[in-house]
């Protein structure tokens, strides 16, 4: 049996197996269809039904179960997550595991299409070291991603000295709903 104690390890291994079968396109299709539309259908339903409150409810439960180090901030027109200690990437780092070229892409790979279907879009950055931030707004909202500290105050992960340490590579998404919309990779 393959189980859930080491799920992140065989999940990441599976990305590379799929890439070898059908390239990055197949991996991206897997994130969208298998994870976003099937496995995480409960997230999709919550967000469609309750909007920002649904996001708070979904991530409140799942990140508590995974024992993540994070802060969630819910405003009237935005839901923000600051992830200091991603349990998923953290498991891979602490166990020295890497098969696929960018594990962190899987999150926006399934969350992006879920948000698009529910009428939201995403500003997001991840640093490949277990830290990331997300801002979800309605697709019609013209507001840009917020400057550091503006929404989450001292809890903004971008204030953490480790956010942009010399060995960090940042991936940037603006008003995105798909992993293919990655704007830049800042080294």
């Amino acid at each position, binding site marked *: *049996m*393959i*189980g*859930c*104690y*080491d*799920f992140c*390890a*065989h*999940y990441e*291994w*599976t990305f590379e*197996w*799929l890439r070898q*079968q*059908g390239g990055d396109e*197949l991996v991206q*299709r*897997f994130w969208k*269809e*298998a*994870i976003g539309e*099937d*496995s*995480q259908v*409960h997230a999709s339903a919550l967000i469609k039904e309750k909007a920002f409150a649904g996001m708070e409810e979904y991530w409140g439960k*799942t990140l508590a*179960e*995974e*024992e993540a180090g994070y802060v969630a901030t819910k405003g009237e027109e935005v839901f923000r997550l600051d992830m200091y200690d991603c*349990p998923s990437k953290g*498991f891979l780092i*602490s*166990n020295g*595991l890497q098969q696929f070229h960018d594990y962190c892409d899987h999150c926006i790979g399934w969350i992006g299409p879920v948000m698009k279907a529910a009428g939201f879009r995403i500003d997001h950055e991840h640093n490949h070291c277990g830290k990331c931030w997300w801002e979800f707004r309605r697709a019609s909202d013209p507001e840009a991603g917020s400057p550091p500290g503006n929404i989450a105050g001292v809890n903004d992960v971008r204030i953490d000295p480790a956010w942009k340490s010399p060995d960090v590579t940042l991936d940037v998404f603006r008003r995105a709903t798909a992993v293919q919309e990655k704007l830049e990779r800042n080294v």
Partner: protein
Amino acid sequence: MISSSALPYRDRKSVGSADFYFAINSTFRFIRDVLGRHALEAYWTSLGREYLAPVSQYWKNGGLEAIANYWNEFFKAEPGAEFEISSRSDAVELEVKVCPAIKHLRDGGRTITPEFCQHCYFVTEAAAQQAGFTIRVQGGNGCCRQTFFSNGVAASPQQLDNIQLAK
């Protein structure tokens, strides 16, 4: 905290997050639907041969006792599992009384990929073969018996009909 010499990876949690069973179930369905049944078996075999290579090595070094240790530690880290392990001189028998994955999928109202229980044979057989062992699975759909033999022991071939489709 998961920190056992029988398991290849460590985690700060004492058990895994059960919702990951949703993703495992969906992964099997996706591969079967998009790439075909043959690819699903190839995926399971690669998982056993490649991903579980550290487990195979542990079994190879430690024999049947290591197999018993591994499954004991493994199922202690799976939420909701009920199981019993018994050792004989020529085999280890793992009785899964409550499969944590099938239980969680049912509790969550999920459509279970019918072939779900077959992964236990294909994945584990691939890992076991590299260590000089073989597995036979009987049952499924929520509870099963998995028996590990040394390759030298005559065991009748695995019949997939002996593994129930899950629902």
